[in-house]
């Protein structure tokens, strides 16, 4: 992570998730200088928040670890965390980006020993766990955070807690005087890889997300299954901490719906199929999954994954878009609807309902600096009018990790071509 001067032969990558990291590394490994901007305190994005990913059900730590190692070994990538691009000016081959960097209050001396975390008493919501739990206000964003450095929550700055943290640090790593900075970075091309956000499930009013504690989203379920999550890897329902053994998965929660997201989010079917494995893993004897679906879209070559889940006796498939969810006296969410295979009405209680929420592009509704052509769902289009700003990963389409990486590599290649032209013109 050597500092280097950004020129118009530099590639600016916005977003440090799996797509942004990939694009940055692919470009840097061909010899380009890259500035990688991430708004969170650590890289990895939503991929790092998964328990496992399909189809091999390995842990994301594995895939991310490889990328982090490449990153540590590559002096051409300059990583800026807690940083957000607030404006881009100029055109192809000659952009100037304005980047706001929030204070971390912890400098490079940090060894991640954790003394400050032990000293501090204030607890704050933990966004890494989708606010399902809380963590100390001096914290490591997640177990494999890169940079492996603590962060102080701005809430404790100016309180005695901050002084406690400072006093506890043996390495002089805590700097309470850090201020927000604004810097300018030059770049020849920009890869926009800001990813996605889960669709706001509370907008699907009949499903009662936000009103019923035991209706959660698929991304929250990932955290429940993860050993680093708020329940230590036990699938417990939020209302009373009871083991959730009879779990309903509701597909197309927001997706494929003109009232919510027009597009198919592609990953949700596979995510729910994957999550039925978690249920069986945690409750091999009596775990039960029910998938309510319109049609299962096991994209691409994952049909065999679907067939294996179908063959599992603990998983039931019901062809129906659930019409509404209510709550009974025991706090069980009850699904109402009509099974379109046989047109039978059902009213079925479950321990927990998991809404397979759709992907909303994070660029939607945000004023991306410059003029960006987006499709009707808000994903960045590959359009010449975008100049040398290239969408990558889930900023450009609803993609799984595998395809996001492919898309990021493609975007890196486009960016490389632009800066190569700039270099030639200047030579």
């Amino acid at each position, binding site marked *: 992570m050597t500092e280097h001067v950004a020129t118009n032969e530099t590639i600016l990558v916005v977003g440090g998730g799996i797509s942004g990291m990939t694009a940055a590394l692919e470009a840097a490994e061909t010899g380009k200088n890259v500035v990688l901007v991430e708004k969170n305190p650590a890289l990895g994005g939503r991929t790092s928040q998964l328990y496992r990913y399909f189809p091999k059900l390995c842990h994301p730590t594995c895939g991310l670890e490889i990328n982090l190692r490449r990153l540590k070994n590559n002096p051409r990538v300059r990583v800026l965390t807690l940083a957000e691009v607030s404006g881009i000016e100029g055109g192809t081959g000659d952009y100037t980006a304005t980047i706001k960097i929030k204070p971390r209050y912890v400098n490079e001396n940090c060894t991640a020993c954790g003394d400050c975390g032990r000293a501090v008493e204030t607890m704050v919501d933990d966004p890494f766990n989708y606010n399902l739990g809380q963590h100390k206000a001096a914290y490591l964003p997640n177990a494999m955070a890169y940079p492996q450095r603590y962060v102080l929550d701005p809430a404790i700055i100016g309180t005695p807690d901050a002084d406690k943290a400072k006093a506890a640090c043996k390495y002089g790593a805590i700097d309470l005087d850090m201020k927000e900075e604004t810097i300018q970075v030059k770049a020849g091309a920009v890869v926009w890889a800001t990813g996605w956000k889960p669709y706001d499930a509370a907008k699907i009013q*009949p499903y009662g997300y936000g009103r019923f504690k035991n209706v959660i989203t698929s991304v929250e379920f990932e955290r429940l299954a993860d050993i680093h999550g708020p329940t230590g890897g036990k699938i417990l329902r939020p209302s009373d901490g009871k083991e959730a053994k009879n779990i309903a998965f509701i597909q*197309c929660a927001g997706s*494929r*719906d*003109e*009232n*919510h997201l027009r597009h198919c989010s592609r990953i949700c079917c596979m995510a729910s199929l994957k999550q039925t494995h978690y249920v069986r893993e945690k409750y091999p004897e009596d775990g039960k999954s029910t998938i309510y679906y*319109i*049609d299962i879209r096991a994209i691409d070559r994952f049909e065999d994954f679907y067939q294996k889940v179908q063959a599992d006796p603990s998983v039931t498939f019901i*062809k*129906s*878009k*659930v*019409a*509404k969810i209510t709550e009974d006296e025991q706090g069980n969410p009850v699904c*109402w*609807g*009509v*099974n*379109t295979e046989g*047109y039978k*009405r059902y009213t079925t209680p479950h321990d927990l309902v998991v809404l397979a929420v759709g992907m909303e592009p994070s660029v939607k509704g945000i004023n991306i600096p410059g003029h960006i052509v987006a499709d009707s769902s808000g994903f960045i289009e590959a359009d010449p009018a975008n100049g040398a700003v290239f969408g990558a990963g889930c900023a450009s389409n609803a993609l799984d990790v595998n395809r996001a990486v492919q898309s990021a590599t493609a975007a890196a290649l486009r960016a490389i071509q632009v800066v190569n032209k700039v270099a030639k013109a200047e030579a």
Partner: protein
Amino acid sequence: MSANTALAEKYRNNFLKEIEEQVEMGDWVKMCMQCGVCSGSCPTNFQSAWEHPPQELFMMIRAGKREEVLTTTSMWNCTSCYNCIVRCPRKLPITHIMHGIAEYAHRLGKAPKMQPTRFFSGLFWKNCTHTGRVNELKLSMGLYFKDGFGAGIKEGMKMKDVAIGLLKAKRLNPFELLGGHKCKDQKGIQAMLKKAYEIERSRKAAKMAG
């Protein structure tokens, strides 16, 4: 040849096309993706009369089940609450399609004659176009006696407390039985209706010939 046979002949095995062309909003039927949220959100809960929920009707149309669709009582049970339209992920105007299919079945003479909604619709129309005003007494009596004199008396007796209450509150005028109140310009109303029928008839004839 009846209108029904003529249209069945015209579209042969393509009932979906027939619905698309002949039924108001019928061209939406093909957009249904069979998610079932319309039926799930229907407040009628398909009590016994709701034989086929909307998405099943749409599938039956696509499967060419002409006789079954046109003679069913299902779409006549729609209460026009519009829940299904609000919830449909493809924005199908389901309520309107239900009424469209019902009207088409009625037009072809296929709709079940004594289905209460259909019977009431006919009764209401005759009642209010006769004088230009709704005669509520005649309307409710007409509905009571739908299944014969005996059944009518029985139904009337069941409701007699309500009727007496209405009488006392002056919400029911027994003299309405002798003709009842009328709108001022009787001739004007009839002329207007005649013109409307003419327009409708020519429009539908053109559609059927189409």
